[in-house]
């Protein structure tokens, strides 16, 4: 039984910088702090005074890995503030590009960060150079999967990171459809590799269960990362515009990022692939439902490790959905919808790979950003992560310190946190813990 501190200065195989401090006395956890350490860059302040047309590209710099999510949420917020209604083609191409983001981002998390945990090794660098080794096969699967995800975004929006083509009202440049057959062929080819990944994360026997509440977007028509309203475990449903009222920000004095709780009951909640799969599995592509049938039976689940499995299934969903779009779309010549600027407020909510992402833009009649607000998924998950860790440490405190450190990192990684995202925003009503 331990007394004293257990510290992780730098949690590895995550995006950004975070640490953990646990104080133990008399065999119980006296204090536990999950500390997000990335320094703030104050993007929501820095964007003020810029013309709205320049804002999405600037704000995509909030995050490297989910820059497309920030780009699309910002564009949506601005479009709503300006009363711009997009064409069907624009929305379909955004959906296709977003599938590319999800495939690449989930695969990075699952194979580069989580797979070493599954294989009980430190790093993908330790996987033997043996073609018969399952780790070797899975790692090389991941290269193909990540690459097709990136290439979808390269073709449709010009880049996987800080993409140049999307703009409020449409696209500055339309994709070259002569590249679609190659994407289709490669998407078909990786399907067995994606299924091998799903099986791997399904058979990984890890569990940490806690009664969390969940939040995600749902639109009742299809499994959609961009459009819908926000639902929670109690069936409460709010439109995107009301999301901000749904929760309260909480200043966590030792962390560079705020946390969030529900504004009515002050309880924590979880966002991300687990929430999406728990609520929306009925909306998956029919081929995904068929091929992933036995894995889908697990959901709804309150095991945080099933966030990994949910991401693996979402890769398959995005492969199938991309195939449907690529096989059927005929690119028509279109230019972005432009209107004279108007004063207005708009909200854009999307499902980033790691959960709900909210952008709110206030624009004046000259088209200049007057105020901006962002709520990111890792901030929302922060208190939930801490509470999961408290449960784990309290139930396993007799274990060796190195085991506790290792397992704590696995729990944090399962959330797929992104600290770079989490530290850029200032909220209005905050509460000091």
């Amino acid at each position, binding site marked *: 039984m331990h007394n004293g501190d257990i510290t992780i200065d730098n949690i590895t195989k995550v995006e950004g910088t975070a640490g953990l401090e646990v104080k133990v006395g008399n065999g119980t956890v006296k204090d536990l702090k999950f500390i997000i350490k990335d320094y703030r860059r104050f993007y929501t302040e820095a964007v003020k005074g810029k013309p709205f047309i320049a804002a999405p590209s600037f704000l995509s710099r909030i995050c490297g890995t989910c820059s497309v999510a920030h780009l699309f949420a910002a564009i949506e917020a601005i479009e709503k503030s300006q009363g711009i209604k997009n064409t069907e083609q624009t929305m379909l191409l955004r959906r296709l590009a977003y599938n590319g983001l999800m495939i690449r981002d989930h695969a990075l998390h699952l194979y580069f960060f989580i797979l070493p945990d599954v294989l009980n090794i430190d790093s993908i660098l330790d996987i033997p150079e043996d073609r018969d080794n399952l780790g070797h096969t899975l790692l090389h699967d991941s290269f193909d999967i990540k690459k097709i995800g990136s290439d979808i975004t390269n073709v449709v929006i010009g880049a996987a990171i800080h993409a140049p083509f999307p703009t409020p009202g449409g696209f500055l440049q339309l994709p070259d459809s002569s590249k679609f057959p190659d994407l289709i062929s490669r998407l078909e080819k990786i399907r067995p590799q994606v299924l091998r990944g799903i099986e791997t994360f399904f058979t990984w026997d890890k569990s940490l269960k806690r009664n969390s509440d969940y939040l995600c977007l749902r639109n009742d028509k299809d499994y959609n990362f961009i459009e819908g309203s926000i639902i929670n475990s109690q069936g409460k449903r709010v439109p995107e515009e009301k999301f901000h009222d749904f929760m309260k920000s909480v200043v966590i004095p030792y962390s560079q990022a705020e946390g969030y709780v529900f504004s009515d009951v002050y309880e924590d909640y979880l966002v991300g692939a687990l929430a999406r799969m728990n609520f929306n599995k009925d909306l998956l592509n029919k081929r995904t439902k068929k091929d992933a049938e036995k894995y889908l039976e697990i959901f709804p689940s309150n095991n945080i490790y099933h966030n990994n499995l949910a991401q693996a299934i979402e890769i398959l969903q995005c492969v199938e959905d991309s195939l449907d779009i690529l096989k059927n779309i005929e690119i028509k010549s279109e230019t972005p919808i432009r209107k004279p600027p108007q004063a207005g407020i708009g909200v854009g909510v999307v499902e980033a790979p790691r959960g709900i992402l909210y952008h709110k833009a206030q624009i004046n009649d000259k088209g200049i950003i007057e105020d901006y607000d962002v709520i990111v998924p890792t901030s929302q998950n922060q208190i939930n992560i801490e509470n999961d860790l408290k449960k784990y440490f309290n139930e396993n405190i007799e274990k060796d310190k190195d085991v506790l450190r290792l397992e704590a990192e696995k729990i944090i990684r399962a959330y797929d946190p992104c600290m770079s995202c989490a530290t850029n925003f*200032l909220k209005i009503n905050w509460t000091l813990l």
Partner: protein
Amino acid sequence: MEGKKLSIGWFSFTCCEDSTILFTELLNEHFDEWKKVIDFRHVKALKTKNSLENLDVAFIEGAVSSKKQEDGVKKIRQNAKYVVAIGSCACTGMPSGSRNEFAKSEINEKIEWYMKHFDYSDKVRKLEDVIKVDDRVNGCPMNVPVFMNILDKYLKRFSIS
């Protein structure tokens, strides 16, 4: 017998880590080839057991926001024969250094609270304002052909093939 490998470290400071993501994308094509010639000695995105000792080349992404980060990059410099600044924030300080341009009226009470509560330095600085930089890969994210050329240059400099 295994030949000499280029010992590298990859580090991130204040930024969005877009170049780290791009680096992990480059592994899709180059993993097998690079594993033969590169010792990934300190890459937090890929491994837990990291070491700072005797780096041939340190690739540093991000701007420097605090005394703690300043100490961090100085420590890397002491342990690395060469340092390469990666991406716009390391090379120019921007866009992570946007707060350097804030007018006093823009420093509201919440910004002030974070600035005082944590060890933010007065200004966000680019890497070469803090340590000697041997090479730069500009871009947001980094320019891949330039990065590949610089990596190749150091492989040749250390006679690794």
